[in-house]
Every structure is written in C-alpha cells, then in structure tokens.
C-alpha cells in the first residue's frame, strides 16, 4: 500500500553497493599509491557512510528519514505517514517514533547529520587524489542532507559549498607525486565539482517531492476531517428537522386536545352533557387529524419530496383546513387569501408556511385565548432593487431572467392576551425557533415574530419559485424594498 519502505530498502541496497564498490576500487587501484594519511581519511569517510546507513535502517526510515525525524522534532502533520511507513517495516521503530520522548529521534537526527558532514569532508578531501572516486561519498551525503525536509535548506547547501571548496583547496595544494596513477586534469576537477553540483540539484528535487507529498497528506487528512464534520452536521440537522416536525404536529394537536378536554370537564361539571358530547366529538376529530398529520410528517421524513412544486391552491386548501380546525376549537379567525391559484410553490415552502400558520394559531390560542386572530395570505412581488442585489449571488442569471420574483407571505396577528393557564406557560419558544430554522433554509425565507402596535404579529415569507435570491432581512427593509403589488397579474409573470 505504501511504497516508501520498499524504496527505502532499495536505497539501503544502493548505498551498501556504493560502499562496497568504492572500497574495492580504493584497495584495487590506490593501495600503495596514496599516502597513509589519505588512506585514513578514506577509511573514516567509508565508516561514516556505513554508520549513516545503519542509523537509517535502525530508525526504520531510509528514504523517509526526514519524515521520521521531522515529525519527532516538530510534531508536524507528517506523523501519519511516519506511522504508516514504520509500521510496515519494524515494530521497534514504530515504538521509537510513537513514544512521547523525542530524544531517540533527536539523537538519531544529530548522528545522521554528523555522519553526513564526515562523509562530505572525507569524500571531498579524498576525491582529487583518487581521481574522483570518493566524490561518491560527497554525492550520497549531499543528496540526503539537501533532501532532508526536517533540516533547513541551508544545512544541505552549506555541506554542498563546503565540500566543493575543500575539493578545490585540495586540488590547489596537491602536488602529484612521481608514483601517482595520474594527476587530476582541469576537466577532471570540473567534473568532480559538477558532480557535486548536480547531486545538490537531485537532492533539491527530492526535497521538493517530499514537501509536496507531505502537503498532499496534510490535505487528505484535512479533507477527511472536513467530511467527518460535515456528516456530523448533517446528522444534527436531520435531528433538528425531526424535532421540529414532532413539536409542530404534537404540540398543535395535543394542545388543542387539552383545551377541548378542559372544556368537556367544565361542561360536565355544570351538567351540560349535550355540549360536552359535541366537545368530545370535536376532540376526537382533532385527535384524528393530529394522527393523520403525524403520519404525513413521518412519511415526509422517510421520503422527503421537498423539490416537487405544488400549486398555490393546494397550499391555501391546507391552510384553510388549519383555520377550520382552530375555529372548531372555539377560536375567532378572520382568514383572507389572495394567492393566485396557479402560482407554483415548492413543497418545502408550502410545508414551512403551513407549519408557521399552525404554530401561530397554537400560540394565539395559548397566549391570547379568546382574542380574534387575523390571517392574511398573499403574494408579494420583489421590486427591481432586490433583484439587483440578488444579481451578485450564484443564481444571478436566473434572477436576471426573472426580474420580478414573487414571495408568498403569511401574516398572523392577534391582540395581546394574558397568559393565564398552564398551557400559556409551556412552549419555551421551541416553536418560534424551529420556524426560524425552517425558513432560514429556504430561498427567500424570512420570518419575524413580535409585538407590533399592541398585537402579536408573526410575519413569514418565502420565495414561491426556486430562485435563490432576495433574502429580505428585516421587516423595515422589506417595506422599503418590497411592493405589495396588485398580486394577481404580476405574480403570474414570476
């Protein structure tokens, strides 16, 4: 799954092969030719090379050495890839990298750094006398130190410049001895320096690759994280939708039932059995309609079909039913409806409007029992100014093609009453909050509830067509921007 450990072992094999070839060539071609001191330098360089390989194997990260030490040192986002790469290689290295103490990683990092410096210095000193053979050590050290992303770039670059300088200095001071195999030609020196420069470029390219890889990993983590959060959010919003439905359906019908049963109780106490019977029948009807409503809500939750368009006449029929039910509970409701029957309304919008009316009527019954309630349902046309504002939104073209967007608006008002019974104290604004959430999710959705001139007014409006625009923020704003048009004609155009 993760290719890094395999590349790592390939790298170990190549490095070991390099050590063997260089040692063999050194002994085969230069024994007896080089001074003893130079032999010692060569030996130290080779030992350092072997040491670097051993450290890399022990830390379980040959190519990913930087990744391991980097994460241990800086605790960066790369930890995930470290665990991936190490877990497939050795379990001991896993425990090394995952333990909280950073010291083994830091020690290995330092040892590696020192090994690279020794390799580079010894390789650079020995490269001119060995006619370029020992540049292999410099190249190995340069590539790996430049590519190590846990070290700053200048570490590697200093090793590059330093070894190039040493090579030049040694070439300057070298006086070819008579028994030398051959003296280094100008082109040979240039080739050695060029080799070091090219290996620096190789290291740089590997460094870039690792950085890009680390960034890609971090991005993947972030994306996973975001997806998890999104799904949690979706679950939460589902739960809220269900809570809304349960509240709206149950609070309405059960609240009505309580009123009816209270009335029955009072009527029975006063001995008016006939009237009590009528109330009981009404209560039964209310319970039946509540049950039907609950079934509808459950169906809607099970298979939401919010995108379907319905006609305004269906909406007004549903609203009318609610008004009738409220009248049956003894409420005085004045209902005015001027929606054009053919105006298309989305299923979501229709449900939201019905629930808004239901909640407003329940509230009026609870908090202002006996007060007359006025319900006005109308279509309003959003004037040009708002459409201009909408032109910067994502559906600008739709808005431009549809200069007059219509909203369906419902306004329920009743004079303030006195909350005097247990019902009035219940509720905790769940209903109004749910209503606000519901309208917030709809295009053009807006709801306000509050006291206006001695009356409690619930004012809700929502876009009739599916145009994501014209989010009219406040009631005053709306009066400035929205003209209560002579609805029938113009709204049909929308």
């Amino acid at each position: 799954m993760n290719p890094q450990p395999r590349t790592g072992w390939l790298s170990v094999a190549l490095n070991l092969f390099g050590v063997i070839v260089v040692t063999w060539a050194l002994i085969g071609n230069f024994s007896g030719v080089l001074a003893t001191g130079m032999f010692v330098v060569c030996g130290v360089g080779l030992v350092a090379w072997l040491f670097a390989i051993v450290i890399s194997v022990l830390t379980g990260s040959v190519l990913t050495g930087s990744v391991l030490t980097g994460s241990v040192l800086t605790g960066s986002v790369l930890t995930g890839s470290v665990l991936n790469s190490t877990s497939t290689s050795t379990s001991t290295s896993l425990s090394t990298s995952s333990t909280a103490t950073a010291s083994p990683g830091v020690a290995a990092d330092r040892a590696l750094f020192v090994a690279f410096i020794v390799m580079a210095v010894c390789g650079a000193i020995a490269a001119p006398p060995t006619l370029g053979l020992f540049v292999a050590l410099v190249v190995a050290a340069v590539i790996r130190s430049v590519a190590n992303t846990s070290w700053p770039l200048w570490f590697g670059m200093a090793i590059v410049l330093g070894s190039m300088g040493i090579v030049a200095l040694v070439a300057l001071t070298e006086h070819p001895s008579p028994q030398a195999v051959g003296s280094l030609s100008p082109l040979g020196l240039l080739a050695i320096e060029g080799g070091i420069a090219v290996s620096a470029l190789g290291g740089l390219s590997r460094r870039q690759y690792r950085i890009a890889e680390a960034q890609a990993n971090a991005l993947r983590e972030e994306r996973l994280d975001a997806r998890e959060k999104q799904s949690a959010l979706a679950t939460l919003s589902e739960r809220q939708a269900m809570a809304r439905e349960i509240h709206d359906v149950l609070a309405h019908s059960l609240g009505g039932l309580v009123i009816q049963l209270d009335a029955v109780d009072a009527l029975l106490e006063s001995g008016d059995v006939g009237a009590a019977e009528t109330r009981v029948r009404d209560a039964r009807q209310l319970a039946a309609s509540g049950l039907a409503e609950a079934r509808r809500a459950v169906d809607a939750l099970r298979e939401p079909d919010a995108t379907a368009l319905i006609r305004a006449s269906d909406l007004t029929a549903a609203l009318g039913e609610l008004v009738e039910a409220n009248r049956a509970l003894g409420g005085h409701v004045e209902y005015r409806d001027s929606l054009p029957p053919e105006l298309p309304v989305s299923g979501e919008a229709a449900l939201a409007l019905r629930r808004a009316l239901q909640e407003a009527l329940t509230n009026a019954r609870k908090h202002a029992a006996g007060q007359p309630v006025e319900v006005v349902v109308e279509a309003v046309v959003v004037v040009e100014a708002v459409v201009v504002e909408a032109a910067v939104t994502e559906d600008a073209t739709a808005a431009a093609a549809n200069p007059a967007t219509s909203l369906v608006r419902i306004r329920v008002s009743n004079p303030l009453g006195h909350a005097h019974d247990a019902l009035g104290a219940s509720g905790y604004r769940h209903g109004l909050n749910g209503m606000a959430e519901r309208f917030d999710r709809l295009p053009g959705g807006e709801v306000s509830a509050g006291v206006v001139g001695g009356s409690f007014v619930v004012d809700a409006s929502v876009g009739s067509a599916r145009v994501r625009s014209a989010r009219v923020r406040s009631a005053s704003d709306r009066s400035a921007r929205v003209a209560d048009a002579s609805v029938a004609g113009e709204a049909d155009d929308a």
Partner: protein
Amino acid sequence: MNTQLLVNAALIVVAVGWMGLRQLNWRPVELARMWRSPLILGAIGLVTLVNSSNLSHITTFDVGVLVFEIIISLAVGSALGVMAKFRPITAQGRAEAHDDGGATLESRTGWWGFALWVAFIVLRIGIDVGAGAMGSQIASSTAMILILLAANRVARSAVFAARIGRLTSVGV
C-alpha cells in the same frame, strides 16, 4: 600585465565604492532585476574567459582557484542575503530609486554588510596575488572578476527570494 593590474585595481575600487554605497542605503527589492544583472555579468564573464587566448593553457590549479573563489563568493553573497533587513518601500525610497512601482519592499545590509564586502574584496586580492605568484593564468583576469561578482549576486538573490517567499507566506 601592468595594465591589467591597473584595470583590475580601478575595477576593484569602483566595485567596492559602488557596492558599498548600495549596502548602506535602502534599495528597492525587485527580484526580476536582481536575477537579471548577475546573469548578464556571468554571461559576459564566461564569454570573456572562453575567448581569452590562454584558455588552452589552463591548469588544474587554475580551475581549483576559480572554483574556490566562486564558492567563497557564493558564501559571501548568501551571508549578505541573510544579513539584509527588509521593510515596506516608502514613496520617498521609490522616488529616489526611480522605481517604476514594481517593488513592494526595500532592503539594506548596513555596516556589517559593508564590512563583509570589504573583507571579501581583500581576500579576493590576496588570493589573486598568491595565485598569480604561483603561476595561475586566470586568477587575476577581468573575466574572473565578472564571474565572481555574478556568483555573489546570484547567491544573494537566491537568499532574498527564499526570505521574501517566507515573508509573503506569513502575510507581511
């Protein structure tokens, strides 16, 4: 040889003075221009070097001197780049430098930069004289000076580019 030494001396004096002044004053930072001048200098230097009549007599010693000096030059350039301080460019700085509005930052290395520059020149003259005495053909040539100057500026530009990249990535 005498004329070349004189030309060298004049070049060095001019370079020290001009570059020294630039270290001390705030200068607009324009990366494109900072890369352009060393590339042109380096190209001229290389062409001069290749065209010089004694190219066939170049020895390993010459190449060693060349590489060694280039490395010192790169190191000094990098150090100057690290020493430099940046600040957002002022309208006055822009006007004084006749900048056409491309730069957003200006930089200066100050007295330490100047000192390093002088030390570099002195070291360069020392190597020049020493290498010349040891028989180097190209150590004191004009081509060499141009190449070294180019190397110095390239290293400084590279460090500048990296530092400015970091500055902009943290939104300064």
